[in-house]
């Protein structure tokens, strides 16, 4: 059975000033094809992303970082989420060009998944579904 993201709302945002949007759009395509409702925010600072999380209440918050801001802005994102009370009841996911030595730190900060470049569509969707199920956030079977 193909893993499906029907009934799942995802925010896709770019952390920092990185200028490439193709990757984030491709991931948005993949998620939409798996049935998700995708809100694409483009380049956004942590505050804007979290304000969106407050109003949109997504199951997944996905951010991509290609410009080196994954730790500095990534930690700000989680901090802001906890401050506004929207860290729980959803998963935070990071993708992009992440130096391998920084990945454990991201998990410690609170990211549930970290995807490197070249992760396949199947892997992205399957892993998100798995994590959502683990956290009891998937209402459908």
């Amino acid at each position: 059975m193909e893993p499906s993201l029907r009934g799942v709302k995802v925010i896709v945002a770019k952390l920092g000033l990185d200028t490439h949007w193709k990757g984030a759009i491709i991931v948005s395509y993949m998620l939409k094809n798996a049935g998700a409702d995708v809100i694409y925010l483009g380049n956004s600072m942590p505050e804007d992303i979290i304000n969106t999380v407050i109003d949109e209440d997504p199951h997944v918050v996905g951010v991509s970082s290609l410009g080196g801001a994954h730790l500095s802005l990534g930690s700000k994102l989680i901090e802001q989420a906890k401050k506004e009370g929207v860290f729980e009841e959803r998963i935070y996911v990071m993708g992009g060009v992440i130096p391998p030595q920084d990945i454990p730190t991201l998990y410690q900060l609170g990211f549930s998944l970290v995807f490197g470049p070249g992760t396949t569509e199947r892997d992205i969707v399957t892993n998100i579904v798995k994590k959502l199920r683990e956290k009891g956030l998937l209402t459908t079977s």
Partner: protein
Amino acid sequence: MNNMKLQELIAKAIEGDRVSISKIITKLEYGDTKIWDEFLKIVNQQKKAEKHHFIGFVGPPGAGKSTLIANLAKNYFKAGKVGVLTIDPSSPYTGGSFLGNRIRMLDALRGMQNVYCRSFASRGSLGGMSTEAYMASKLLSACGFTKILLEGVGAGHLDIKPLLYSHTRVIILTPASGDYVQMLKSGVMELGDIYVINKLDVGSPHKIKQELEEVVNLKSHTTGWKIPVLLTNAVEGIGVDQLAEAINIHYEYLLSSGLYNARCKEMDMSELKDIFISYAVKHFEKIVAEDSQFLTAYRNISSIREIVAGVFNKIVQEINAEKTASIENVKVG
């Protein structure tokens, strides 16, 4: 989720807690229809806000709806709490959607604490707007949001729901003549209270305005409302003040003419009809797929009335059984 929790959430929402508002809307959208009953009961019990104003905007993609709405919310509707609900189509194949309107309003709405903005997928509902989105607007109005701006997508006859769920109906076109012809063909022209031609530097906006005015003048004679055709340039903020004024004037007109209640009634009728249809369609597919007698009867050209009655009876059985069944997903598409 039980009544208590929903009641708690709604109480918090009414006090102004945004996170609670969002959670309720999520339950409405992604939860199941069982909570609709409780939700409507509780919401209808709330002291009604002063007559709330739902304003619907439809028009083809690229017409500038998001920019106009953001501008209105930021500059002209600052006084009270404003809800912005935007709807994008769900893919009929995958069920997924790309909700691309919020990004275009981000800059305008930053820091506007009085504006709540939420994106919806149409979820395969006929008319391009799910019932849940309308319910969300009811929630917002119960929470003291006096103006709700509903943004739809597309201009064909299939995507007029945001207008049916609104007191004031705004149709947005660009001067590209293709839009105008589409409009005429789709019959949406019957519904507009205010017309906007956006983007003045392409095509022939004045010509289109003239033609449009001729068409709507015919309608204006039968009601007390003179339908305005406005020219705007949303990106540069030109003409948005006139649009805001027209919207406010129309609101006054609805109140003073007594039409406001008639519109509310129309809106609730639309909602009830949609709820009915979504129940019917959802169960229909299951029933007819599982029980071949209906299809067989139909193909043997048996009495249509009997077949329909038979399916309806089964639907009623199923709906009643739902009360005791476990949580199920309500999605139709």
